[in-house]
């Protein structure tokens, strides 16, 4: 979807051919100031087809590789930045400012930081946000809204991404029974002891004693050669603390499907349509601008826009994908 390049000088077309711009966002090329000096002959049908195919495959490659790159690498940059901001916000909120209530439940606005999760043995330190839709887990692990907050009496469930956008929970399957998980929430600090890693078919842990708090970290994992980038099955890590903070009553009893494990958020479709329309508009804008200004100038102006739009578009696409990858 990125508008890009093509230096297809291969066929110096004598005049911009009518081409469907939407299908291939590549602009018509060098219209005027083109001296038809050394034509290699009129383009044959086969040549034209080869050009089209080549451009099409280039576009496919760019779109796929950009998405993969953003999911695996660029996304972690934005996730790290979001974590920095969330950490500062959580610090502020826990200090008890007069203008904001500390997040103790039962209902916390979606997207607000609710707890700090630290697992020294795998070097994880993440701010947990409220909500588990795929858009929420882009910035950090998400707390499922129909469970108690981490550190409170009852079972708290936290979803985290395994591979993309920093993959904060990529390593939690390395945890072993006895490892410590420290949780700082608005009520204080609690250290959880890992009970074990649980996969499909394993029995659920024994019921917790009165007053105990459970924390279940949920992510996805894959198997085989590409296991690290193919997180297909959910996996759970249970941890327990003997004495937890009291939980206020009245939290929601159900969450929408988009917030369940592997849930996707279909609500992002309109936004995606908007992003794609903007990309198309940019393409047309580049085509128009190149009639008037030099190629270099156009690209200096258009590149940042193209990058920003591509980035935003991929963020929206992420919301349509499962929330644990």
């Amino acid at each position, binding site marked *: 979807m990125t508008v890009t390049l093509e230096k297809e000088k*291969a066929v110096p077309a004598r005049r911009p051919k009518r081409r469907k711009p939407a299908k291939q966002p590549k602009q018509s090329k060098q219209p005027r100031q083109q001296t038809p000096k050394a034509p*290699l002959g009129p383009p044959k049908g*086969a*040549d034209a087809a*080869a050009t089209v*195919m*080549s451009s099409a*495959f*280039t*576009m*496919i*490659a*760019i779109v796929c*590789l950009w998405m*993969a790159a953003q999911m*695996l690498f660029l996304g972690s940059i934005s996730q790290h930045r979001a974590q920095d901001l969330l950490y500062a916000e959580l610090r502020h909120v826990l200090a008890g400012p007069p203008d904001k209530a500390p997040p103790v439940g*039962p209902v916390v606005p979606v997207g607000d930081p609710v707890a700090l999760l630290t697992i020294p043995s795998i070097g994880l330190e993440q701010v947990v946000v409220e909500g588990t839709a795929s858009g929420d887990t882009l910035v950090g692990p998400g707390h499922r809204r*129909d469970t*108690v907050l981490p550190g409170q*009496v*009852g*079972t708290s*469930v936290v979803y985290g991404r395994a591979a993309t956008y920093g993959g904060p929970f990529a390593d939690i399957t390395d945890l072993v029974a006895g490892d410590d998980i420290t949780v700082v929430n608005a009520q204080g600090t609690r250290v959880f002891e890992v009970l074990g890693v*649980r996969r*499909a*078919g*394993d*029995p*659920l842990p*024994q*019921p*917790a*004693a*009165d007053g*105990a708090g*459970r924390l279940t970290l949920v992510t*996805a994992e*894959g198997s085989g050669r*590409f296991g690290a*980038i*193919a*997180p*297909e*099955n*959910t996996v*759970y890590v*249970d941890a327990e603390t003997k004495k937890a903070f009291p*939980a206020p*009553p*009245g939290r*929601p*009893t*159900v969450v929408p499907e988009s917030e*369940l*494990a*592997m849930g996707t958020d279909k609500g992002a479709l309109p936004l995606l349509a908007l992003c794609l329309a903007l990309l198309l508009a940019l393409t047309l804008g580049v085509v128009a601008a190149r009639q008037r200004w030099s190629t270099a100038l156009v690209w200096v102006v258009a590149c940042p826009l193209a990058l920003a739009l591509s980035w935003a578009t991929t963020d929206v696409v992420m919301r349509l*994908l*499962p929330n*644990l*990858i």
Partner: protein
Amino acid sequence: MRRLLALILLATAIAVPAGAVASPAGAPDGFTGLDRRNERADGWSETKTLTRTFVQGDGSTYSFPSYKVTVSADQTRNLRGRQRIEISWKGAQPSGGRAGNPFGENGLNQEYPVVILQCRGVDDPSLPKSKQLRPETCWTGSVAQRSQITRAEGEASWIHDADADAADKERLSGIDPFPSAEQCPTADVAGYYTHLTPFVAAKGTSFSACDAASMPPEAAVGTAAPPAEIAAYTDTDGSGEVQFEVRSDVENESLGCSHKVACSVVVIPIVGLSCDQPQTPMTRSDQACRKGGRFPAGSSNFANEGVDQAVSPSLWWAASNWKNRFAIPITFGLPPDACDVLDPRPPTGFYGSELLAQAALQWAPAYCLNKGRFKFQLNQMSDEAGWNLMENGGGAAAVVSSEHDQRGSDPVGYAPTAVTGFAVGYQVDKPDNGGELTDLRLNARLLAKLMSQSYLGSDLGRGHPGIGGNPLSIVNDPEFIELNPGLSQTSQEAAATLLSLSNDSDIIEQVTDYIAHDQDAMDFMHGKKDPWGMVINPRYRDLELPRADWPLLDTYVPETASECRQNNPGVYFSQLAAPVTTLRKIAEALLDAWPYVATRCEFDTGTNTYKMGRIDRQSFGSRFMLGIVSLGDAERYGLRSAALETKPGTYVEPSARSLGAAVRLADQAKQAHPFALDQADVQRSSDAYPGTMIVYTAARLQNLPEEDAAKVAQFIRVSMSEGQRPGSGNGELPAGYLPIQRTGVTAKLYDSAQDVADAIEEQQAPEPTDPTGNGGGDGGPGGSIVPPGDVPIDDVPSADAGPSAVPTGPAAPIAMPATQPVDSSLAGGLLPLLILLGAAGCLVATVLRVAGPALRRRR
């Protein structure tokens, strides 16, 4: 041919004994529920002789012939708000000038009617005055019904009432001291006569009733409940009957009748004022007092012309009328919230069917007021929702009326609790002021036509593709006219629909099962024309029956010139059907003759927008409305129930006998399972009511917490013993239910209930605990109710799950369910696919780019 004959013989042989035995079984111990005409223990009757007298100019007394009037009421004790009681009388003076609508002030212009009012207090001279009945404690919904304001002398007949005190013969009377001009600006005009009958509210406030502003708040225009007081009509044979709706302090706080405040229904047959000695020559008011009416007996007064005041209902308070009163003492039952107020214990919720609502209303106080029992509460919801709650531990028991799919691993026992059913309730007036229709007959095809939205409603429906030739409504349908001759054929939108439920219900399942077993109805559903050429709405064609919910499938939006409809395009047939969520709403809609049809257009000048709303109440005399109600509601509110066709040509009304005959046909496949009533059997029988439904208390037979199990077993046993005694008191079985008894047709239900109660109490095959920890559904907030299809993680028992959360002993590990897999191939395949596609794209593009010029060069 011979085989056919043999079959017929066999069928008759089976049918005849069944019918023959049903009657003695149903009749014996006085099933009083469904037949309101039966003599009731709490009925009431009294006879009085009423005479109108004139004192003549010479001092002698002239007496008109006397009327020996007998008034009776069918029930007077433990009434509930809005309940209707049947009041009948005989021997009264025939009425004249019959009004179209006898309720409230619409009934004032009649002659010799029978005025029926609800009043606070009783007629007992031994009581203190505040508890006695007076005109001041009688409720009327308007000023004109209780006060005569600034009347000319020719209309002031009350000042010559022979029985009145001297004070009441003054020009201004009724309140002493008379209100000042500021309080009542219109009351005191020189030369004119005024009598005020103030209203004294339950809390002691007195309303002077001289204009609309000085009336109690419940008498405001357009109050929630329409007027109940009535000036009823006596036929030419001197008899009459009426269903009178009583109001409790919930509906009318000023009147204030409740289980603590005694009230009466006052019946005053108007025989005309008795007059005192006239002056000579007679004044105009003397003449007015002696008038005898201008309408002949039995005539109607559609034009609402004026009547002779001395024989009109507006002077019911005058002493000579008031002394002719019959005061029927009535008592009210406990209000619906009695248990919440009187018993602080937490209730144990049973969840499910509204069919049990009226019984639960009477049963609940027998539990909460008895410290030896638990606090019973019926929470009404769809049967399926109640069942799910029971299965996953959110509720101790479910109240259902058919077999439900079992999803949990624990076996469930069904204990029969009540025999009742649904009825097609109706409110239909005969044309030409002929009174209410009392025998409506319907068959399965007519129900199918109504429910499948195949009537057009009005000309708006004519454009509907495929059915433009259908009748506008059921009253124009030749099939209906043939069944119910003599009704008005003026179509109205409400007559095109059957008000029904919008949510899942076992009742809808039974209704549709009834339709599904009728060959004609199913032919119609499959698109065959009926003999008169009517076809089904194509949207409902071949709809699968039976089903628990009735969908709104039509999508036709009429094109009209109406600006309102253009601004509010809506599916017309859905607006006609407008289903509601509870049977109670349907019963009240029938009671008020106020359909839910949402086709009224209004223009809101404030926002300059059009909006659609519920149509107005139907006017008295031309009401036509059908709705599905429970038999309990139908009996409580005095609604009429249609007779449904079973065998061709046989129509069966709900009654003790017809319910009993249906119970006889029901059989149980397996112990502790429901009794299934096969509609095919019903349609072969001549006396079984197709709407019969058995209501069950369903509870788990394993893993129910001991405490809950004991409560459920107690409930089943109590409801099988004292709960099946017909009556209106606490713990008794209200009308509309067939008592389940140890003997007779219901014996099998009784035995099954006892077995299931034992099984629930025992909780066979007890396991250590309920592993999912769901027992304490009434405990912790947020509950531990697992929504189906949720992620497995929620099966982790919450530590805050309440009292039943189990302490983990190191000794006995509990068998926990396995983690369910949650996979997503999209999640697994996406990134590798992207990278693969990207790499392939690069490769192909490069190859094309390199190979292209090379190819060309070669050429």
